[in-house]
């Protein structure tokens, strides 16, 4: 009876205890690393935030319209505190990964390995999105100004169309980089973009027939021009 108790209860318990005692230093070190990460993240947030404020990053962002972009994106915090917070979380995240790998658990290690292999894709996707956003704003504004100067009544629409198209292209590229629905997204983008072009062609062909006729007639006859010499 005693033998059965030892084999069924006591030995597994002892084995578990032994493995737990062996694992305990790793766990304690992981918890300590996590706590250190929390502190390091908080410290990074505070120090970097203050440093950026001293370097007048908020004034810079105000001047270059970054604050406006953030407001439009629903963020009411200043750029310095956003960067500080982001850096803080990044530091904490690094500590989380170090602490997880310090556990020496094969399953977690495999997961981390896969995560690290995927990380560059995430990074590239974020960069693509960021550049896409900036480019879409730049070219959207350039298209708007050029359309206004050309006297196009639908200038606003033109500016928004250019902006949206560039951002859509960037978003498609980012999703493709992440490997999310790779083919579906490319096909969807092609359908949407092709659809827009087709819709515009039909709209111009049918709806704007008279307008196109007038335009061509004016061009052929020579439109009445101002003869002011500006310089």
């Amino acid at each position, binding site marked *: 009876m005693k033998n059965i108790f030892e084999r069924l209860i006591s030995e597994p318990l002892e084995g578990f205890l032994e493995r737990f005692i062996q694992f305990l230093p790793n766990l304690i070190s992981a918890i300590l690393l996590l706590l250190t990460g929390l502190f390091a993240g908080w410290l990074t947030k505070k120090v970097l935030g203050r440093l950026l404020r001293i370097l007048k990053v908020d*004034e810079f962002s105000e*001047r*270059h*319209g970054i604050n406006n972009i953030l407001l439009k994106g629903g963020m009411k915090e200043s750029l310095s505190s956003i960067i500080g917070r982001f850096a803080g979380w990044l530091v904490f995240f690094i500590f989380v990964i170090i602490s997880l790998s310090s556990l020496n658990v094969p399953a977690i290690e495999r997961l981390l390995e896969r995560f690290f292999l995927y990380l560059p894709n995430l990074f590239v996707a974020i960069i693509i999105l960021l550049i896409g956003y900036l480019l879409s704003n*730049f070219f959207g*504004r*350039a298209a*708007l*100004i*050029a*359309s*206004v*100067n050309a*006297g196009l*009544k639908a*200038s*606003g629409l033109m*500016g928004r169309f250019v902006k949206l198209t560039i951002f859509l292209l960037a978003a498609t590229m980012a999703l493709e980089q992440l490997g999310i629905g790779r083919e579906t997204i490319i096909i969807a983008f092609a359908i949407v973009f092709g659809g827009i072009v087709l819709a515009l062609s039909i709209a111009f062909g049918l709806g704007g027939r008279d307008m196109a006729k007038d335009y061509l007639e004016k061009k052929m006859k020579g439109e*009445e*021009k*101002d*003869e*002011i*010499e*500006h*310089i």
Partner: protein
Amino acid sequence: MDSIILRKEIKERIGEIGTADILVGIPSYNNARTIGHVVRAVQAGFAKYFPDKRCVLVNSDGGSTDGTMDAVQSATIEDFQSILLHHRVRPAFKITTPYHGIPGKGSAFRTIFEMADALNVKACAVVDSDLRSITPEWIELLIKPVVEGNLDYVAPLYHRHKYDGTITNSIVYPLTRALYGKRIRQPIGGDFGFSGKLARFYLSKDVWETDVAKYGIDIWMTTTAIANDFKVCQSFLGAKIHDPKDPGADLSAMLYQVVGATFDLMETYSDVWKNIKSSESLLTCGFQYAVGLEPVNVNVDRMIDKFRLGVKELMDIWKEFLPEVIIDFLNKAEGLPKEEFHIPDEIWVEIIYSFAIAAHKKLINKEHLLKSLTPLYIGRTASFVLETWESDAEEVEEKIENLCIAFENKKSLLIEKWQQEV
């Protein structure tokens, strides 16, 4: 970039000539139709007014494909009696060469300055190659103040139609005058006289790989001369008539180039213009006379429509740097009927100064900033046309004078904002 005078054939030609007293440069690009007349006028000017001087004509060409350089070589005055001239003491030399470097009028001028330096000339002039109204007297009027009056820079003064040169009249002239204190009526006229000393000074500036080489050379030459205390005057040349410009030329690109170059120079010479409080008139050479000018076709309704479209669509951009009072004014002006449409001088001055400050502080991309000025400029031009519809040249000049005074009166505001930290 290598100097043009290092090229073998140019070196030989300069060696043949040795030194010269006077040089006239003609920058060109596909001007075969008109350049012959300009060359003949310059040659006649040399013969008539500087018969005892060693004169050189330099054509600096931008790679014309229509035979411009051949037209220069073949242009000659067969019979000097036709210009009532019976003697010619010294022959004039002619050099035609393609220029090197960034394509543009500035690079063409650089070649002319290099030739002037190599030939050690006393006086130079540059004239446009598409001029139809140039006469031999222009050479006298641009060169003599340098040779005999000991002046360094001669700006042109023309009679133009009241609606010609509107960028000059509403921005460049009043702004340059308020900034640098010299009343140069045509700071970007294109035809200038200058001393050999000033040509060497221009050459010494490290601007030949910048936008100055492409465009903006006219305002750069004028501003460099006045901001560096060279002795300046202007000469009355009569009417300026030239080949019609490309009708497709983009107004916003023109504004970007001209106003952008003026704003860039504000950065270079900020220490100079901040200390200038008022303006002074200049010595004006030449006998002034009235000239008949062809009427100009203006469609004010279309101009006001473009202004309204700009206010509707570009307001978000302007709000980033225009004062609130201007924004309110523009919103009101958008709804006004043609009969009441008016942009006063004070508002226009504040708009231009705000754009200058925005360019200085790099608030938005410079090209976007300056091209977004186009609807406001068109609105101001429409307002000016409505205001001066019945006015004669003298009354129009009076209005421009009032605008200049408004620019000068508000200069302290510009200085204050310029110095404010962002």
